[in-house]
């Protein structure tokens, strides 16, 4: 019987524990990992986020001279790995958790970026912003000033391989 009284006391002393949500908003804590989104002004289309996403929700595909970074977060695990690896802070996990919707299209975020063509074969192979970023990070200042593109940044991968192969072949021939 005493234990029953004790239990009753615990209940009586307990404060109100429920919230008035959804009648009142309930902001998530600052570190909350919620709905991911891409800032189109910043994204350079590098594909780092696509490589780490565990459920593989980020797709990078190209048509002509555009490269599209497409995020469909309907199956998002909210791991925030994409945010962690994004080199320019374009990918952000917001604190938004109210993602219910009647339209699946609302789960999709698309960023379309202009791609530049390979100077040798003409196939678009890299986004303009990516090329600029690489140039800014890896090119010596004098080359940047003259706005000169180094060869390795102006050729697509297969042309680059071919070219290196040719150079190597020449070098071998020349001893």
């Amino acid at each position, binding site marked *: 019987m*005493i*234990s*029953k009284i*004790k*239990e*009753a006391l*615990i*209940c009586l002393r*307990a404060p109100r*524990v429920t919230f008035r949500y959804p009648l009142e908003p309930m902001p*998530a*804590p*600052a*570190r*909350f*990992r919620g709905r991911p989104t891409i800032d189109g002004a910043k994204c350079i289309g590098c594909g780092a986020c696509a490589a*780490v996403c*565990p459920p593989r929700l980020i797709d990078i595909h190209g048509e002509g001279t555009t490269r599209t970074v497409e995020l469909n977060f309907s199956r998002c*695990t*909210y*791991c*925030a*790995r994409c945010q*962690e690896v994004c080199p320019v802070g374009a990918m952000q*996990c917001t604190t938004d958790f109210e993602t219910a919707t009647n339209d699946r299209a609302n789960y999709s975020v698309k960023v379309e970026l202009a791609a530049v063509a390979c100077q040798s074969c003409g196939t678009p192979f890299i986004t303009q912003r990516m090329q600029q970023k690489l140039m800014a990070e890896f090119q010596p200042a004098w080359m940047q000033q003259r706005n000169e593109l180094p060869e390795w940044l102006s050729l697509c991968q297969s042309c680059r391989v071919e070219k290196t192969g040719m150079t190597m072949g020449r070098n071998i021939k020349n001893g």
Partner: protein
Amino acid sequence: MTTAQVTMTTAPETLTKAQKILQGIQEKFGVALISAENPRPDRLFLKVRREEIRPITDYVFNTLKGRMVMSIGTDKTPVDGHYEVSYLYALDAEGIALNLKELVPENDPVVPSVAGIVTYANWNEREVYDLLGVKAEGHPDPRRLVLADDWPDDVFPLRKSVPYNFKPPVRDVKPPMRELTEREKKSTIVNVGPFFPTLEEAASFRLFVEGERIIGADYRGFFAHRGIEKLTDNVLDYNQIPFMAERICGICGFVHSACYCMAVEHAAEAEVPPRAQYIRAVMMELERIHSHLLWLGLAAHYLGFDTVLMQSWRIREPIMWLVEAITGNRKTYGLNLPGGVRRDFTNEHCDKILEVIAKIEKEAGELVAAAAEDHTLKMRLVDVGRLTPEDARLLCCVGPTARASGVNIDARKDFPYCAFPDLKFKPAVQHTNDIWGRLLVRAEETFTSIDLVRQMLARLPEGEIMAPVGNIPPWREGVGVAEAPRGECVHYVETGHDNRPYRWRVRAATYPQLQAVPYMLEGMHVADFPIIVGSIDPCFSCTERLITVDRGNANKLRIYEKKDLLAMSRRRTQELR
């Protein structure tokens, strides 16, 4: 290290524990031991001849007092034409994980069954057959265990030749039933399932009942087998698996991702910064506190003490908010990656943790004290769901289930990981062998965890929280062991190419405990059934249906919903009052 080197280069008095054990096995079995590796003091990986597996198993289990942890079946046929079947043992007294690996030729996929020596091997061997197609010769009950009933008989999903997304057509196949004893044949059969109220797995029990008493039980589960281990074939990479691992359990997910990361770190011989180790350990203990409070509420709920449910969940909730503020989510913390953790504690976090656990200590203390004095509660739990220490050992039970049967094992003590080598605590052990004991163990552990968190925060090291693991060479093995709230959680990783493991194997604590449930049920009332299954803490949640089959008229089915089952259990509490 080859076996020869061990004996030649080291004098007996300087031998480590692992080397002594190795020497013992070598002396006794000689050529049956093909090779041995001792990559860390607490790990011993042996390759043994499969013809000799029974005597070696007998020696490891009965003489060395090893506890079987799990079997690991790996398809190495694309590499060297063999299947590999391993049995991982925990030598708890020595703190060594010992792996016995048999090489099985592709054209003769058979191993001798050891289920006659270690009862717990029963499921392990059935699982190896289901998933890898290596048969255990002489198995007492080789029914299908893991795969769906209609899965084709000749497709073994863990073979590398089977694509990960292979979907066989649906067939109409009866589930495999075990042979009944004469007594069971005369009894009434009560079917519980297939959606048993366990959160992780839908499960089905057939109870053999005489009047009110259960005389036997048969289990069929794995309905929700998700085949996540297969995803390492070509879907997930090293850094993606933690997020998958975290979703294995709906309550204690963090310990899974931590355990996986430990396995990878061991295999890669990577050092994890001390601060990351402490953060992991703090989070694991917070997880234990909220998990045990959750269990207490659920257990009380099954017995009809809903006030205890309401109050223990209320007391628990601040932990959920706390971890949400620290990690970004209340359940899937997403903290672990091989090499460390992704988010640091701030000073405010540490203060907040201390504040929350102080409050919980006080409130949970009052609640547990009130519940523990409750006469009715005690009557429902004392001597119910008994598991003898002998059975607990044969079934290799772990966690609170084992500790309430007097088996003094706790991975935090026996295999100290993360911060635990630096901490002082005593595992909670009871000798009552019943649910009451399991309750006492969990209650004590809740307060031990609070103390452990305090110890850790008082000495939280400064510094980095992540150290890059770098390239992981293939064909290394790692075993991660951690004490989850429900018992020891073990992850095994064999490294492979393409930045992903070749094999990833997970053993959660419920795996051995569920095998013990039929033992606990024997002689009990049907009304005790929910609390007995609940006493192993298998994360009850899904809705339940219970069908009684009237044997005189097979068409007359009685279907009990969850509410009927609960009502039955509660009526029994009323009767006792």
